[in-house]
């Protein structure tokens, strides 16, 4: 009997022993997976698609679900899933999504994955597998809209080198992830997916308490998502075409002339008969089509030169006229026709707030509300800079209970005399301190 291609992966936090994983030798690789879930309650987590180079340089792929086990120990986690030699196949996550979420369904998932192992690794068999991916969740209008917004954002982002793209979502929006993995800008054959930071290509999802924010939707992305909702294979092909277009090196001509606006990205809508992953053959270069951009560029340059010449002439004429007119000819009427009074100069607070939001102190997270209460913000920043409070906590212009408690023990704060009493900052001193801090950057 041939050895299974996909094998079981389990991990748990065992009291008095620590974090354990089966197979044992992969613990060091898998340990970071759940660490970012430390602050989440028990059972909160999500999927992962991960690959690493184990002993002997073998590439090991792993896919599963990792959740916080905070009740056992802060920072502890549980995981379940599958591992295999080589990367996890591109379609595995959407294909096994439903079973993956439930640890009790892992045996069934393993059986199915091993039955389909050959097809999963063979791109020519993917159309059949894609037909097995259930698009029903995309019939939900809210989910579909959220997916359009998120994919539009992801496609607009520059391609990060060996770094993941961050995706913010709440626990109820996890359903977006298999579709982001399948349709997103990173080739799913190479894309990793983790809740923790990693060096590599893929997506790092960050679980927050609020659902993903809204945003603009790119027309082509919307078409792709709508197509996927009715036919996953069709959506996959559109995504492949979009990724290919995105990965294509930019022409040498000026970017301004060449790059079409995002809203009007033209995308081929391949038919089902085309081979799935293989890129479409590129058309032979046409001499006329090569000549046209050149002619257009020459015309643009000539036009710009003509405009520059005319502007120069106009300026020279105006200078000559002003030089010949005596100062006494300025009439009262001209004096009255002064431009409208300029907007009042920004106040000191506004300047500080503007500078603070534009250049937040290094390593300190600023929320927009911080600009509304600068004295409080000054004290919050001071505490973080002087190690009296965790830098990871965002500055929001309000004192939390934890901050108030930390303030009482912060000797540096007492020495700087930024507080008027135990709870209120000294407005003038704290503003002055903040102004100095901002201008020093």
């Amino acid at each position, binding site marked *: 009997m041939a050895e299974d291609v996909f094998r079981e992966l389990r991990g748990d936090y065992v009291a008095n022993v*620590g974090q354990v994983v089966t197979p044992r030798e992969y613990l060091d690789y898998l340990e970071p997976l759940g660490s970012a879930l430390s602050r989440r309650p028990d059972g909160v987590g999500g999927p992962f698609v991960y690959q690493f180079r184990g002993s002997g340089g073998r590439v090991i792929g792993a896919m599963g679900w990792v959740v916080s086990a905070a009740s056992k120990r802060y920072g502890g*986690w549980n995981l379940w899933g599958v591992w295999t030699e080589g990367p996890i196949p591109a379609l595995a996550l959407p294909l096994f999504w439903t079973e993956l979420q439930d640890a009790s369904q892992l045996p069934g998932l393993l059986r199915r994955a091993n039955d389909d192992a050959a097809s999963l690794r063979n791109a020519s068999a993917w159309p059949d597998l894609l037909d097995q991916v259930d698009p029903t969740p995309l019939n939900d209008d809210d989910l579909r809209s959220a997916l359009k917004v998120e994919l539009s954002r992801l496609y607009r982002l520059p391609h990060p080198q060996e770094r993941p793209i961050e995706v913010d979502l709440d626990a109820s929006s996890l359903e977006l992830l298999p579709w982001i993995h399948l349709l997103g800008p990173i080739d799913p054959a190479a894309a990793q997916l983790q809740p*923790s930071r990693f060096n590599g290509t893929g997506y790092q999802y960050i679980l927050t308490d609020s659902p993903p924010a809204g945003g603009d939707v790119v027309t082509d992305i919307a078409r792709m998502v709508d197509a996927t909702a009715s036919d996953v294979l069709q959506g996959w092909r559109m995504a492949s075409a979009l990724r290919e277009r995105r990965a294509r090196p930019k022409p040498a001509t000026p970017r301004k002339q060449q790059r079409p606006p995002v809203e009007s990205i033209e995308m081929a809508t391949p038919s089902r008969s085309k081979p799935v992953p293989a890129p479409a053959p590129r058309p032979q270069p046409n001499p006329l089509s090569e000549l046209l951009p050149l002619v257009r560029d020459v015309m643009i340059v000539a036009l710009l030169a003509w405009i520059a010449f005319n502007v120069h002439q106009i300026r020279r004429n105006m200078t000559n006229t002003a030089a010949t007119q005596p100062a006494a000819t300025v009439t009262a009427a001209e004096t009255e026709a002064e431009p409208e009074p300029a907007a009042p100069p920004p106040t000191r607070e506004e300047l500080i707030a503007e500078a603070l939001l534009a250049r937040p102190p290094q390593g300190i997270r600023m929320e927009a509300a911080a600009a509304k209460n600068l004295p409080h913000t000054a004290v919050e920043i001071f505490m973080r800079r002087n190690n009296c409070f965790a*830098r990871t906590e965002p500055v929001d212009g309000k004192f939390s209970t934890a901050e108030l408690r930390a303030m009482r023990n912060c000797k540096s704060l007492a020495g700087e005399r930024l507080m008027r009493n135990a709870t209120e900052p000294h407005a003038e001193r704290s503003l002055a301190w903040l102004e100095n801090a901002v201008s020093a950057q």
Partner: protein
Amino acid sequence: MGLFTKAVDKRCPICGGRQFYAVPVGRAEVWHQQVDKHPQWKHYRGLPDGAGVAFSEPRLEWDQPTFDRVTIPSPHVRCEHCTSLVPPQFLSDRKSRLLLITTGMPAAGKTTWLKCLFNPSSKKHLIAEPTTQIGREPYRFVEPYTIANPDPRTAVPILLHGMKVTFQRQQLDVAGIDVKGEVFQQSGTPDKYLRVLDILTNVRKMSYSEVLTMFVVPFDTTLLRQNIGQLTTHLTHEPGSRGTWQGVIWTHLDRAQLRDADAMFAFLQSNEDAVALARRVVGGTEEVFDSRFVAALTAIERLVQDTRNWTGRLELLESLTWLLYRIMLAYTVLPLRFGVGKVEFYFAFNGGLGEKLVQQCMRLAAVLFAAWDSAGRGDFAGMIREAMRPDAEPQFPVLPCGIEFLSEDDEDGLPVWGDLLLLELLRRHG
């Protein structure tokens, strides 16, 4: 030896390297990307090249000394050989340099204890806190984390700490090595275990004014937990080496419960002072400390010491442990009652009244711990017996403490008597 000691003395504790380069502080995100380009960093920690480093903060938005080189002076240096960030306390003058090795099994409270000792600004919990008389300045970075946010879950087996302690005109540099207990378990990876042994060898080649090896052992009535006692052979210095101090940090004492008050009174009835003290503590209304307090505690200590076969009397032992912790809690309000600071109460007030009370509590803690130890695995029996000899110094090999803090919104945490360690060290170096 004397001529070259100073030059040889500045070593990287991780690899023994003697050359260092200055580095700037950058974003932790940058550190995270750069660490993969310096495989020796992971190699010297027994980690495979491809292994990631666990962080609880998903966006890595804090500062961390990077791997870049700077030519301008920087307080942060890395070893040329293994690229480890070396806290300045490891490279300071050996006369004021002290090595603190802490190790313990998972969930023993080791990281919490260290965080409390090194960075106590956010929570009140220490016997000598709040006071401005002891200044402590922790080195902010505990690579790959920070002292403000030491991650409890990590595959990194060794963390380097640093802290400068000042008291009046004295100054001590505490160089700390936090050894993760998992590496000594059978399930651990052999690479990490061997690396830790290498690191301990490197550390032994350096000179320190004092070496403290603290084993963190949690209070556990089940006696099933594996503790770290078997490490003693690895972690102690050569026989006869000067200034080695071993001790136990006995955590989670707040979990001890009063199982049977009557059984406890019956056990103590042979001594009136002891039983009276126990009744006052159980009653909870009277003053715990009186003129017979030291005599009472001495009697309890003797009774515990003279009793054999604790295995069958664990409930009584737990009640006595509960008694100890209640006394520790009661001690924390004494300085306030006398209107003096906690440090002054410990050192100077009424001829060092605090010190006498605390010493007695510590002796009781040691015999209680030894009783639990002998009822279980017996790892530390020899060490405690030796430390309890009349001429031994210091006389408290066991530092008892509660580890559970009160809820976030409350003012005070429970006492962690770890600061006694600092007080004692300061006095020895005075």
